[in-house]
């Protein structure tokens, strides 16, 4: 009697084991596999699902062009479910079980930091498409989003010079990107002669919805007669409540301008922007960018994903990153990570705003900085556009980072101390 029970359990165990075996078996080399590591459920799905769709579209287009190295590309989509440890687990699975040649993925910095040890251990390749706080350079990651000097610093300059802002409210969601960005900005503003008392910093949890008090606090900042500006690193759907409260309080962009680093076309599609006209966002790409290649991209995207869909900055980052990877693989003639990595340096590809992106030896891109004013239709009116700015892994505005440099081509080091002339560490900081 007990024996039968055992038998049943053993049967179940055998079932599971066969499952594993069949999984490991089909790692064959007819296709080039591209891992897509974006959350499709949980809190980050709101942003990341779009990027998964973008990757599927890019891969489909590449296959229509005849694939790569004579092989077809195959997308392997997994769902890390906005659960950070799961990112590490899925990344390992993609690399060792599915044997993908490259991964495109992650959105939040935590998820990237979760994946870092795994890809560095297994020598994988990840393209990370989102603007981030910098202070990191991994041999195995190409950062196709903006570093702080490609988004936050130029936007702050715009506030200082063009709008004459003298007092800053740095509002952010409480996680690493806003924290580090604000730390850099605080130092930058102090260097620019803004007193510490004129910098107001506030952090709110993810998905915060009760903004009346904070908006009132910002208004009250104007009491000493200085022009107030808000630099917002508020993430995701919390923005909707924030902007609704801002609109309700009747704060005009001419009184207190708000520049956001995490609000793009996608986020604005969730609200009515008539009362937000004139507030700003800083990105490296806007859907409204006037370039033929952009018009083409938007057309293809709408045909692929639906007429009501919009394009945004991280999508452009994936667009550049994917095409550069394709070109690098063709240049290297193989998908081997180290060969592709070497071929990536100096790769040039036209971006969607009319200039050209170049991959630097510090794994960052050159990107133009665009500042746009929100319009009634939820799009941005570009009011400022710079020449492409080279991305800087280690910021120049914090003393401990200013001495660091990343150069994987000449120095073969992502964290090189220019004072002591030594490589601090080869693995990245996680």
């Amino acid at each position, binding site marked *: 009697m007990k024996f039968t029970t055992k038998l049943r359990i053993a049967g179940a165990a055998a079932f599971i084991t066969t499952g594993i075996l069949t999984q490991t078996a089909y790692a064959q080399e007819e296709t080039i596999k591209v891992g897509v590591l974006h959350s*499709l*459920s949980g*809190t980050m*799905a*709101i942003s990341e*699902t779009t990027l998964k769709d973008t990757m599927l579209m890019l891969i489909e287009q590449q296959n229509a062009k005849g694939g790569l190295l004579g092989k077809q590309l195959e997308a392997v989509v997994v769902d890390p479910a906005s659960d950070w440890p799961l990112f590490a687990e899925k990344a390992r699975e993609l690399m060792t079980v599915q044997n993908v040649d490259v991964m495109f993925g992650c959105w939040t910095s935590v998820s990237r930091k979760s994946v870092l040890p795994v890809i560095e251990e297994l020598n994988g390749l990840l393209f990370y498409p989102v603007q981030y706080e910098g202070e990191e350079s991994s041999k195995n990651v190409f950062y196709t989003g903006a570093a702080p000097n490609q988004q936050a610093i130029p936007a702050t300059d*715009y506030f200082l*010079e*063009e*709008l*004459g802002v003298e007092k800053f409210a740095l509002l952010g969601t*409480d996680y690493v990107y806003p924290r580090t960005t604000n730390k850099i900005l605080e130092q930058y503003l102090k260097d620019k002669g803004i007193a510490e008392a004129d910098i*107001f*910093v*506030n*952090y*709110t*949890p993810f*998905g*915060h*919805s*009760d903004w*009346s*008090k*904070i908006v*009132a*606090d910002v*208004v*009250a900042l*104007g*009491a*000493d*007669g*200085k022009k107030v500006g808000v630099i917002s690193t508020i993430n995701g*759907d919390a923005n*909707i*409540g924030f902007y*609704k*409260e801002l*609109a*309700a*309080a*009747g704060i005009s962009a*001419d*009184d207190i*301008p708000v520049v956001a680093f995490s609000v793009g076309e*996608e*986020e604005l*599609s*969730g*609200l*009515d922007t008539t*009362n937000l006209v*004139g507030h700003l966002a800083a990105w490296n790409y806007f859907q409204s960018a006037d370039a033929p290649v952009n018009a083409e991209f938007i057309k293809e995207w709408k045909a692929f994903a639906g007429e009501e869909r919009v394009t945004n900055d991280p999508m452009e980052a994936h667009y550049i990153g994917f095409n550069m990877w394709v070109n690098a693989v063709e240049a290297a003639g193989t998908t081997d990570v180290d060969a592709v990595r070497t071929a990536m340096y100096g790769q040039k590809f036209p971006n969607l705003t009319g200039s050209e992106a170049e991959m630097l030896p510090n794994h960052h891109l050159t990107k133009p900085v665009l*500042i746009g*004013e929100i319009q009634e239709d939820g799009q941005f*009116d*570009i*009011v*400022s556009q710079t020449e492409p700015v080279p991305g800087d892994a280690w910021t120049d505005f914090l003393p401990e980072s200013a001495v660091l440099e990343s150069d994987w081509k000449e120095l073969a080091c992502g964290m090189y101390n220019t004072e002591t002339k030594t490589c601090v560490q080869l693995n990245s900081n996680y």
Partner: protein
Amino acid sequence: MLRIILFVFAALTAFAPAKAQDADLNALLETYRANIEKPSRTTIGPVLEDLVDSQLPAVPVFLEKWREKEVWQRESDGRFFFVEDATDGKVMLIDVDSGAEAGLADKNDLDNLKPNSGVRGVIAGALVQFQLSDPDPERRLQALTALERDPEASHLSILRGAIESESDPAIKARKERLQRLLTIQFGSDQANRVAAIESFAGDPGVDARAALNPLLATRVEVFDAVPEGLNVARLLTPGSDIEPQSAYQMLVDAGKARPVVPMADRKQALIDNIENGMVAGTPVAELVTQAARDRAYLALAADGSVPPLVTPDEQRSAVANHVFAEIYAEKDPVLTTAARETLANISGTVGLYQFVDLALDGLSLASIYFLAAIGLAITFGVMGVINMAHGEFIMIGAYTGYVVQQFIPNYTVSIIVALPLAFTVAFLAGVALERLVIRYLAHRPLETLLATFGISIALQQIAKNIFGTQARPLTSPSWLDGAWVLNDVVSISYIRIAIFVLALAFLGLLLFILNRTRLGLEVRAVTQNPRMASSMGINPDRINMLTFGLGSGIAGIAGVAIGLFAKVTSELGSGYIVQSFMTVVVGGVGNIWGTLAGAGMIGSLQKVIEFFNPSNTLAAQTYMIIFIIIFIQFRPKGIIALKGRAAGD
């Protein structure tokens, strides 16, 4: 033809000084083309001055259009035009000077000038003098707004001149107030300025404080003796008013003391003095503590090969021998005293209003919590059932609102339709849940919790599959836009007022249903003793079903309300569920007044904690929950405890 004219003008500008320049706006613009194409707040000032000084009649119109982003530039020759829509996708060019039509053009050959908001502000400032006495009150208001944003000394006399002729009393009052504000900043007569300052006593306006505070701007300076002839705000005592370290640093900066050798320099000095693996007689390998390094450094300093350290004693005495003082930038003590006293007066008023504002915020948050939790309180109270899917009924309500707006574009009508519809949809969903699942788990409350949790994650994912992961817009009608503003400190958005009214209405409705109707009687009977109620001919099954539907329906309405002021996503409800539970538990289960008390307490408490810790909302939430945990220790059954079946034991 045009070229010739241009050439003639160019010749005129070159040869004829003064007046000839003013002949045509186009020519004037041509000279500043580069600045106008790519304007910047910092460089546009002189251009605008010249434009205004030219006194050309077309300048104000041009500036207005420019500010409104309605000026276009022809790519071929860089000339500026206004445009009007014409047929065949072409546009009609309008000359900026004469206002005459200047031929059709293709939009692709034109660039729209888009001055950024900094430039627009400067343009608005330049327009003030034209608009302040304009017959159109709209324009006068525009000018006043521009003035309020960015006043300059030159505006004061213009403004004074424009007060007498003002016919609209409201605008006149605003002009007068602005005149007083400008007098504070730019007035030349001391008595006038003091009078203006004192006139703002008790005025909570941000603009008043914004005018007064700059008068009180101070800088910290160091002196050898107590300064005289300066407008001293206060003397600083090192140690209490100013950090001794920074005080000493000030002395160093002023050249009155030796600089402290920074740690990095000290380390570098040691490295520079390594000889044969020794620093001043100490082997390098022994310099493994800061103390050892300090000893080595002192030994080096004794040789005179490195600058000696500044001892703490030396620092102390240097600091003690000097006077540190805050000095007003404004030299006139009469003005600063008046400003200080008026500000002190204002801050009392502001404090009072801040309290009022905080109370309003708390009330608003409480009403949102109340709406979100009341449905839960009813089902929990009557049936002893924990509905983890309650948050998803809120979500269903919000999505119903969104769907209704897709079909009814008029926001007012759509909200009127959405509220009952959200109630109905959520009511039906609630009844379905009760019929299909909950009644089978009637005596297992903890298992209901798990089953409804399952429903909750399934519903969330289904919503995601249907509506996508993106947030969906739920827009309030325009009459709910904006805020009720008492003054610059106290204001509350209409949408929050509406939610408050909605919460009150439901409080009233529920009280009515429970206390005045047959259904209410039966519900109360079932709540207190289901068996007895059953034997009195009440069908508890039916009551449970209706109660559950009612609770869910209210959640649906709460969803519409929450969606209006926050976001509509599939996770909308889960953000409120824990909060709602706590509201119910703190308030006391099964009692509407209890939920009201719970919501009131949690809402106001959260705001009070936020008030004390404004830069960290997370901390406020953490402390609030800790408070709740402790509170429940003392009142385990909530603020208003109930007896009967709902009371548990």
